[in-house]
């Protein structure tokens, strides 16, 4: 497969996954904002979203106040904000457009139609129709794209690069949300004041609320939430699950120069496969997650160098 084709596929799936994760995060924050709380606390959750995406400066350039409506507008439909859902869908579609011949007709039509729909609506229209419905729509379109891929695409290299993009992006997002929320909710490692609603919201944002109940059949505790999202191998948005898929797909596309990237992936996977939550917490969750995100980044970089960037002419 052409390196450029693989690159577009990889980024197409990353942007779709990013749009979905953003919709999940915004949805949960929006729902949480309706729970009785101080205005300060509410705005804190909104500014958290800006910080989570490292967009403080870009946001400050447009809005003076941090509040629900501004942040939603900025993160949902602002075409100038490259991290908005709107921009993610546009980038996903542009990447797909560049390689539409490699996608199945169904995949291309699904994504193209998603973009045409997204492009045709203003924030005011979305808001009037209930912003929650829009988030549901984004998640549904992402699911549809994933399903169409699974149901129609030949499982060759193209499929492996698409999966790699999805799983790396998801691992990064889950780690980011967990890091941030854990930090906000337990700033001093305070065991007592567990806010059920906040933890439940975090779980819901990664579709893990019911899963938690099923796995633990017990009250929600922060350590178990961390364990579920990091180490559970069967939960589709956990770090362990993502890394399982990453090394499997890396293995399938291996070429002569990808040995080191594969080794790094294997090392990271081993930590999740054999790790214990007690050790991770003792080490410091924040430090551990930061290290994890760095290594995910390096893994993406390695994939890019080994496969995606046009390779040296000689070989």
């Amino acid at each position: 497969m052409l390196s450029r084709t693989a690159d577009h596929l990889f980024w197409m799936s990353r942007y779709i996954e990013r749009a979905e994760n953003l919709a999940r995060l915004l949805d949960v924050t929006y729902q949480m904002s309706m729970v009785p709380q101080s205005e300060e606390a509410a705005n804190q959750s909104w500014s958290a979203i800006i910080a989570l995406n490292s967009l403080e400066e870009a946001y400050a350039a447009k809005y003076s106040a941090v509040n629900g409506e501004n942040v939603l507008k900025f993160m949902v439909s602002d075409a100038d904000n490259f991290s908005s859902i709107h921009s993610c869908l546009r980038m996903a579609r542009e990447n797909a457009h560049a390689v539409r011949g490699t996608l199945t007709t169904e995949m291309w039509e699904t994504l193209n139609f998603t973009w045409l729909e997204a492009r045709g609506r203003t924030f005011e229209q979305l808001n009037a129709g209930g912003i929650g419905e829009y988030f549901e729509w984004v998640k549904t379109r992402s699911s549809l794209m994933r399903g169409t891929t699974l149901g129609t695409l030949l499982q060759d290299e193209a499929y492996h690069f698409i999966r790699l993009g999805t799983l790396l992006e998801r691992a990064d997002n889950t780690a980011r949300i967990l890091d941030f929320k854990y930090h906000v909710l337990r700033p001093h490692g305070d065991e007592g004041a567990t806010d059920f609603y906040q933890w439940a919201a975090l779980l819901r944002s990664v579709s893990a609320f019911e899963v938690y109940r099923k796995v633990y059949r017990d009250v929600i505790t922060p350590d178990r939430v961390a364990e579920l999202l990091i180490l559970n191998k069967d939960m589709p948005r956990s770090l362990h699950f993502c890394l399982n898929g990453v090394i499997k797909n890396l293995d399938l596309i291996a070429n002569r120069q990808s040995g080191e990237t594969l080794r790094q992936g294997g090392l990271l996977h081993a930590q999740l496969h054999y790790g214990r939550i007690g050790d991770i917490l003792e080490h410091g969750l924040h430090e551990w997650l930061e290290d994890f995100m760095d290594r995910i980044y390096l893994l993406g970089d390695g994939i890019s160098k080994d496969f995606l960037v046009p390779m040296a002419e000689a070989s």
Partner: protein
Amino acid sequence: MNFYNEMYDAQCGVRAHYKGYEDWLKATPPERIERKRAEADLAFHRVGITFAVYGEEAGKERLIPFDIIPRVIPSAEWKALQAGLRQRVKALNMFLWDVYHDQEILKAGIIPAEQVLNNAQYRPIMKGIDVPGRIYAHITGVDIVRAGAGEFYVLEDNLRVPSGVSYMLEDRKMMMRLFPELFARHKVAPVQHYPDLLLEKLRAVSPNGIGNPTVVVLTPGAYNSAYFEHTFLAQQMGVELVEGRDLFVKDDVVYMRTTQGPQRVDVIYRRIDDDFLDPQVFRADSALGVPGLMQAYRAGNVTLANAVGTGVADDKSIYPYVPDMIRFYLGEEPKLNNVPTYMCRKPDDLKYVLDHLPELVVKEVHGAGGYGMLVGPAATKEQIAHFRQLLIAKPDGYIAQPTLALSNCPTFVEEGIALRHLDLRPFVLSSGECVNMVPGGLTRVALTKGSLVVNSSQGGGTKDTWVLEDESC
């Protein structure tokens, strides 16, 4: 002016080959037709069958309007057209071989040598290169119009990178999806095997007779106006769609960069103009091409389809000589008519043209796409005055032709069904001795009332083109 009507004869009786369709149209409730037309629009949008328009906002995409009334050609007419096209394309390929080798036709004085050798489209770098099968124009799009009492004329030959074949195929697919019952009632010759035929032709011209050549389609990229077609053809043929940056040349061999390392490329169906192919030889500022490509081509390690330098044969200043080429190379009388053409570089012709501008169509010799032309009868006084100056300043840059009374056909427009002018572009494929084509081609229709310009960039639409295998229905 009287126009030949494709569907009805002069007494307003429906022509035999349109009878079946007309019956169906009369029997079908207008609401159903309306619903189907809306369905077609939505489907084209969803599939993204669009083209980019130059000069508009970058990346903006537009639909080419699709009309649900087909253009029907009876099989006897098609057979005659096909024979004429074979003959013409064969002669054009022989002409190209000749001008890049012994130049017999110039020596014989059939065409003035300076018309060829001083032509900007003549590429001296091609001299002496033996292209496989002696084929230069592997894919030719011949623009044909019907005029006067119904006779066909060749308006121009497109031997460089003719486009539009994807619309021909998508139009058929759409028509079958919308109105399957029509195809049960008519024996419409199929066209969907075009990509297979194209692939077969491309494989047949591999360099050094390589048995299992790697074929690729080379595109300028996603912002090119015909990008949809490039992806479509690559996908349908099952070959890679590459951009210049995906290729590189090493030791006169072309490779593409893949996730598994470099892979050799043997045949390039290029959809990039000559000028942009290789910055080392042509335009140095081209970022679309591949440095060293011409060197690999000259070394015979890669085949380009179409070959470099075909523009010298479809240039409007060479067009008037095509009938003579046919006589010279094939010893046959041309089966297809040329449009009478005034060559403004000739003083007598220029004088005639200047005296009759309001009646004539004036075209730039190197122009294409309906840009830079004057349609006399439709032009304002200012436009005519402007062209008069252009002609006097640079007579050899222009030709002129009588304004043809292009045939028309009933077409759905805003106000209902109305007559609109149309043309036909069959796609002719050549390799070695064989010249093939799928029946019909792309029918383009000028949607603006009275307009004779059918180019999609100028607001033209398309129709499905039916060659009927059996006219009894």
